[in-house]
């Protein structure tokens, strides 16, 4: 009974963000960014928390989503839905192609090879000046109006927030459905005991590949939305530091819970926004929060509350 109630409260609070956030000194784009990071981290968590694959390269798919969306707006057509689709498909296909190259690696080797592929895309973005704008990043696109029923609707901060919220809800529904299906049960079984699963006749590597690909699609979707939020795609969107942030977000919020990445993202983004306004060394404070969280809540913040509830 308690869990559906808590979820309902979160959804109501999210729907009302444009009304209460400014009263607390926030601004709508901040909440939008938190949701975008929550989408990316939720996608990563399908691989990290549920399948047990520690990827330190998921910013690659996030960044490809961002560049894909930007390039589509500049070179293909001024259409928002098409840009989101293009970015998602670009990052997702990269995930499908890279999956087979990482799925046989275990433990630290899995993490290292995911970093390596992430950095590969980072350097491509930095070097390929003509297409990507190099180190300055890709600019020259913005949120174009969306055609709804013959009207051109401009998406200001509030409307764009609701678009991102709708996408977040969709992603959460997809993840929820996967986790209650045989596919999701298989992911968890890979994390728990790949040997046992293999000797039940399941192709463990293929299961990891599917988890990797789905999580890449979701990260790319978040990246495309991020490019539309900022009107900008930068090589930092692809780099290992952002990949690390996604991992921190999952661990902070709780990897064994569907709401964990959301909670982690909200804390991370709010802390980043607040701390970076008072000190340049905001990263050290994020690090401190992370260390305290890992020391005192090793299951993540939501893991802690769930443990307490079950006792």
């Amino acid at each position, binding site marked *: 009974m308690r869990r559906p109630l808590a979820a309902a409260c979160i959804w109501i609070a999210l729907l009302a963000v444009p009304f209460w956030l400014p009263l607390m000194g926030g601004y709508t784009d901040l909440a939008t960014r938190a949701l975008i990071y929550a989408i990316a981290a939720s996608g990563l968590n399908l691989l990290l928390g549920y399948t047990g694959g520690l990827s330190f390269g998921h910013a690659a798919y996030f960044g490809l989503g961002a560049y894909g969306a930007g390039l589509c707006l500049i070179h293909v057509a001024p259409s928002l839905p098409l840009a989101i689709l293009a970015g998602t498909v670009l990052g997702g296909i990269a995930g499908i192609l890279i999956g087979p190259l990482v799925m046989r690696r275990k433990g630290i080797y899995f993490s290292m090879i995911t970093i390596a592929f992430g950095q590969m895309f980072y350097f491509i973005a930095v070097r390929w000046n003509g297409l990507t704008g190099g180190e300055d990043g890709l600019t020259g696109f913005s949120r174009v109006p969306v055609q709804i029923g013959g009207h051109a609707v401009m998406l200001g901060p509030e409307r764009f927030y609701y678009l991102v919220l709708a996408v977040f809800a969709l992603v959460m529904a997809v993840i929820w459905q996967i986790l209650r299906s045989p596919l999701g049960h298989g992911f968890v079984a890979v994390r728990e*005991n790949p*040997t*046992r*699963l293999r000797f*039940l*006749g*399941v192709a463990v590597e*293929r299961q990891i590949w599917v988890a990797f690909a789905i999580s890449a699609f979701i990260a790319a979707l978040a990246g495309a939305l991020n490019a539309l939020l900022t009107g900008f795609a930068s090589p930092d969107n692809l780099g290992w530091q952002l990949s690390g942030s996604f991992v921190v977000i999952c661990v902070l919020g709780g990897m064994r819970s569907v709401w964990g990445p959301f909670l982690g993202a909200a804390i991370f983004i709010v802390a980043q926004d607040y701390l970076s306004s008072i000190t340049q060394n905001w990263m050290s404070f994020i690090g401190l929060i992370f260390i305290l969280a890992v020391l005192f809540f090793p299951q993540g913040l939501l893991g802690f509350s769930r443990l307490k509830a079950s006792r």
Partner: protein
Amino acid sequence: MSLLKLENVSRRFGALQALKPLSLSVAPGELRAIIGPNGAGKTTLFNLISGFFPPSSGTISFAGEPITAVTPSALVRRGIIRTFQITQVFLSLTVRENFRVAAEAALGLQLRPWISRATRAQVEAKVEELAEMSRLGPKLDRTVGEMSHGDQRVVEVGIALSRRPRLLLLDEPTAGMGDEETSHMTDFIRRLNKDQGITILFVEHDMAIVFGIADRITVLDNGALLAEGSAAEISANPRVQEAYLGAAENAA
């Protein structure tokens, strides 16, 4: 007609000859024990049959078909299922979740992101069936990692049953168990063999169990076949007494 047949199968690891060429044949419906001192090659033999690694020489056939270089998952689909010396289950899941993963794997649903109500009912029926066979019904919602060692091993055998094995390989099924747990497991093995007609090959150190339930016994020593026969034949065999039972007495 034998269900499982090994002909001159051997395995070496570098300079170590873990198993010298041996031939072995198991009839359908048989309950066969493999015994031998530590290092005799029992687990190596299991690993060869279950496809964990291929033999260095020789051929293995199952139900008349060669399976010498077949992968573990393909062997599982043919009905050769094994358990491990160190229990291999999904520890942080409940018994029900363990059985559900096994049932879904057995039904080939592992990549399906959604299933129909009818398929879900099929999975649940299979879970109930496994719970009944393993007699773990009352403990279905317990987390496996918090259960006793004996119960965990029963869960492992229950998982293995999801595939309706034609040949079940049990590696030291009663290792580390107390008396009560041991007799539960022994009953379970006998039930599976007699009631379900599953051919079972098991490695075991507890001689009371081996001589109590096995139809036939294969004795390995030093990577070679020492003797094979019924319980009476094996206990009367002077070579076995000398090499194996004598060694056990010395150790004790």
